[in-house]
């Protein structure tokens, strides 16, 4: 009378019902009882064993990385490294902390998101709600896809090319001979927005596509035109999708290194440029947590692995936090049209 998978004979109606319920809960549960062991050829068994082995390998590596990083991070992190600025020194104990890189990460993320969010929403709205002429829409779609696949280092050096043009001097600073430096928070933030853009577009499009047709029609029936329907009906209902996409984009910005190394200059501390407060920071150079980890690894100039581990730990915490936010938002926004 046991509801064990495989025992097809002599099960009571009750047990069968229970099994049906379990199967309904787990969509593929139903197939589990059908496989008779004797119909499995050797190749099938090898395949099954490989699937189990790779699956468990993936699990163990995932947990290995997480636990190792957490262990190393907690070992080397302390309040001091969080609130002191980095200093150049050959002694690991005198290299200070990573306050400036943390501020740099926040500044760059805010700057990049401020550009990426409106632009991404605009692109997504145009693609889903207008999309005319159709050929142009296809091209824009392909463009967004190319942006996902384009190497960030190539985007970064193109960004440098733009920001080194003479007319871009207000965004960084010009040397004596008129040569524009091209590396600043402005430059890095602008290019970072392109790294985040596809994620904002993706999240917003998904949410807009999920809004049923009758919601739009109800709005038109009430006399609203398309523009105000978008503003008053569609965008508010796509809120959670927009937020998910934007947060994913922010995680990309936080984790991006190549753009920072090329476009933010490589100063350890935030080095303001010019005299206007606030604006001088954005015109100046600095570092972020990612470039700090890079510079302090044995591959960089600093070579302070303990600091690098601590900074990597903070970086991971930020990424985990952003991931949790994404999970929360998407869970909350799920049953909207249910």
């Amino acid at each position: 009378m046991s509801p064990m998978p495989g025992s097809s004979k002599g099960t009571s109606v009750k047990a069968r019902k229970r099994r049906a319920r379990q199967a309904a809960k787990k969509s593929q549960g139903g197939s589990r009882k059908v496989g008779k062991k004797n119909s499995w050829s050797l190749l099938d068994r090898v395949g099954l064993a490989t699937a189990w082995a790779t699956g468990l390998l993936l699990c163990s590596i995932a947990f290995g990385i997480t636990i190792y990083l957490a262990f190393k991070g907690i070992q080397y992190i302390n309040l001091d490294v969080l609130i002191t600025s980095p200093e150049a020194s050959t002694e690991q104990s005198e290299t200070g902390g990573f306050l400036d890189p943390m501020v740099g990460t926040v500044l760059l993320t805010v700057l990049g998101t401020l550009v990426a969010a409106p632009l991404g929403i605009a692109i997504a709205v145009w693609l889903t709600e207008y999309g005319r002429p159709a050929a142009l829409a296809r091209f824009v779609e392909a463009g967004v896809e190319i942006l996902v696949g384009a190497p960030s280092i190539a985007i970064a050096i193109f960004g440098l090319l733009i920001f080194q043009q003479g007319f871009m001097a207000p965004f960084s600073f010009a040397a004596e001979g008129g040569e524009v430096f091209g590396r600043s928070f402005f430059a890095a933030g602008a290019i970072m927005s392109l790294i985040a853009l596809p994620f904002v577009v993706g999240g917003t499009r998904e949410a807009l596509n999920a809004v049923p047709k009758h919601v739009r029609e109800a709005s038109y029936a009430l006399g609203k035109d398309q523009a105000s329907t978008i503003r008053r009906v569609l965008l508010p209902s796509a809120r959670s999708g927009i937020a998910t996409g934007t947060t994913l984009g922010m995680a990309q910005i936080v984790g991006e290194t190549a753009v920072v190394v090329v476009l933010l200059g490589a100063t350890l501390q935030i080095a303001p440029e010019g005299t206007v407060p606030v604006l001088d920071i954005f015109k100046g150079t600095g570092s972020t947590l990612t470039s700090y980890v890079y510079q302090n690894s044995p591959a960089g100039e600093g070579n302070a692995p303990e600091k690098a581990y601590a900074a990597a730990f903070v970086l991971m915490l930020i990424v985990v936090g952003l991931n949790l936010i994404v999970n929360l938002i998407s869970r909350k926004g799920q049953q909207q049209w249910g």
Partner: protein
Amino acid sequence: MEAASLGTKAVSKEEDPTNRRVELMLGVLASSILLFIAGMVIFTFFKGLPSFAANGLSWFGAGGNVDEQLGAIFNSPAAPADYVYEFHAWPLIWSTVVISGLSVTIATFLSVFSAIFIVEFAPVSLEKLLDPVIKFLAAVPSVVYGLLGILVVIPFINDNLINEEMRSSVAYVIQLDGSSVLAGVLILTFMILPIMVALIVDSLRAVPRVWKEGALALGANRWRALVTVSLRAVRPAIVAAAVLATARALGEAIMLAMVTGSIGFAPNPLDGLLFFLEPSRTLSATILDGEEGLSVEPFGQTMYAIGFLLILSCALLSFAGWAVRNRLSRYGIGAK
């Protein structure tokens, strides 16, 4: 999406000026992205053109030590007429092809099997646990993988896999210290694996249950049903995942610059297993390493030439992936 735009088209009033203005504004914003991409391709090409022009097709070929060539370009005389351009990128291209190719191949194999495990065989509790873990792994910044590589994997390779005999056998060309193709392939594989697994898992879950049940009803066992029905149906998603992973691998600069030794050396397949222990440097890692020299005119032009090659290969790659997906997706589900 089709349904939505059909609905709006039927109702919207073309002559409404506000609406027209909104549409125009959004369209211009959306098209600006095309302008950016076109600008990127064109400007990078023209900036790199002198390097291509000076070397012709031998730019892609082998010849000489690529690091010495880059050094000579960097130190070329100030007068534009005397710029040195001689550059043969083959070691870098070879390194990129080997490292990306190997890791994408391994990762495709591993990701298909792990996705099957997660969707079909893993206990429910493990499946629920793995979902967020994979999303998290996909979001781990590459510099963190690089840090783990340089502080954990490289010392391990250096201490356990390389012996003195190996070191002395190649000592006249290259020094073995653990930074190697092997380290690069290993870490790159696990960097792209979560992205691929996430994509394939999503589409495996979307395979209609009745399709599988049809196969089961015809007498196929569970594994056969999986391979003949589910796996065939998700082929477009596997291609999409592989294309995305290859793009990632081609563009990965930081991590590879940290773990592959950053030496412009083409590992020699004739060295047998030693091949994997030799250092090298990919195209994107070369740009990152040369980042400080970008303002030196001929050196910068060489770097932009490499950048153009990278952009071009990524664009061709996504086009090829789109074409393959189009062919496969007639009977498939998932990524379109």
